[in-house]
């Protein structure tokens, strides 16, 4: 119980510190360095790919079902999103697909 509270406290404080860092460093009168602006602009694209890989990191490709539920559901999310570009539809559709696959098929 105490450990859980400490985990929440540490996570909260560290998350807040990370959010404040750029404002503490560049929030004054100084102009934001070009390199930082460049990273701020392009990094989100790379980070999102990294987060997708992060979510899928524990898939066992060596044994059945070879990551099939995850890969099929990711494809469903991507196709739904290309089709309608509605994040709620993509997320809901992909999640329902995954739940059905892991509970009923694999």
């Amino acid at each position, binding site marked *: 119980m105490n450990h859980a509270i400490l985990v929440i406290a540490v996570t909260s404080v560290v998350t807040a510190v990370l959010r404040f860092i750029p404002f503490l460093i560049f929030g004054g009168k100084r102009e934001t360095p070009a390199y930082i602006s460049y990273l701020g602009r392009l*990094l989100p*694209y*790379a*980070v999102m790919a*990294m987060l997708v890989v992060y*979510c899928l990191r524990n898939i066992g490709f060596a044994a059945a079902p070879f990551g099939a539920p995850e890969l099929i559901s990711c494809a469903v999310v991507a196709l739904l*999103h290309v089709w309608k570009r509605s994040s709620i539809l*993509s997320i809901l559709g*992909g999640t329902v697909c995954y739940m059905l696959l892991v509970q009923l098929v694999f």
Partner: protein
Amino acid sequence: MKKEVIKKAFVASVPVLSGYLVIGLSFGVVLQSRGYGALWSAAMSAFIYAGSMQFVAVELMSSAASLITVALTTVMVNMRHVFYGLSMVDRYKNTGRARPYLIFALTDETYSLVCNPPEMKAEDEKSFYILVSALDHIYWIVGSVLGSIIGSVLPFSTEGIDFALTALFVSVFVEQWLSAKDHVPALMGLGASVLCLLVFGADNFLIPAMLLILLGLTLYRKREGARV
């Protein structure tokens, strides 16, 4: 606060409303399945207020992870917020006493709304930022508490509902892919992450992947002749 600003903020926040309810709900369900009830999910969603990190925090709470591990994991998972904040430094400059809250509440989704606000008078923008940030925060807390409450009474198995988070990232990735002209950064992120996953394994790949991405983007900028 003007009625039209309230209306604009609410309309802008509707996509986040739906997304946060679904993901918040699945967070509450996952947390409930580990034996932590509504009060825990309300506290985590109010204070941590970072979707992916909260799912990771549930794992850390269930294990005997040291607080150093918790802090380092948080840095790795939430490092991207440092970069999101960079483009809000100027916009949040004149927000006065609301500024600390606005920075605290700068999630990925709130960022996507406040970095691109609808047409309005400059003097109304501060109210818009505050409203959008607070609304999103409320959606997130309500969603996760609902998840905790209904998690125990749902008539069907919720196994696999945590895929909502993966689905969120995939949908954001596709959205960025569709709206970006330059796909090199996205491919770089994908390549570096897969490579580091293969080399360093599932538990240790995040930090090498971030370093490799930073290196790649830095080299890419040099090659581009520092146009930006």
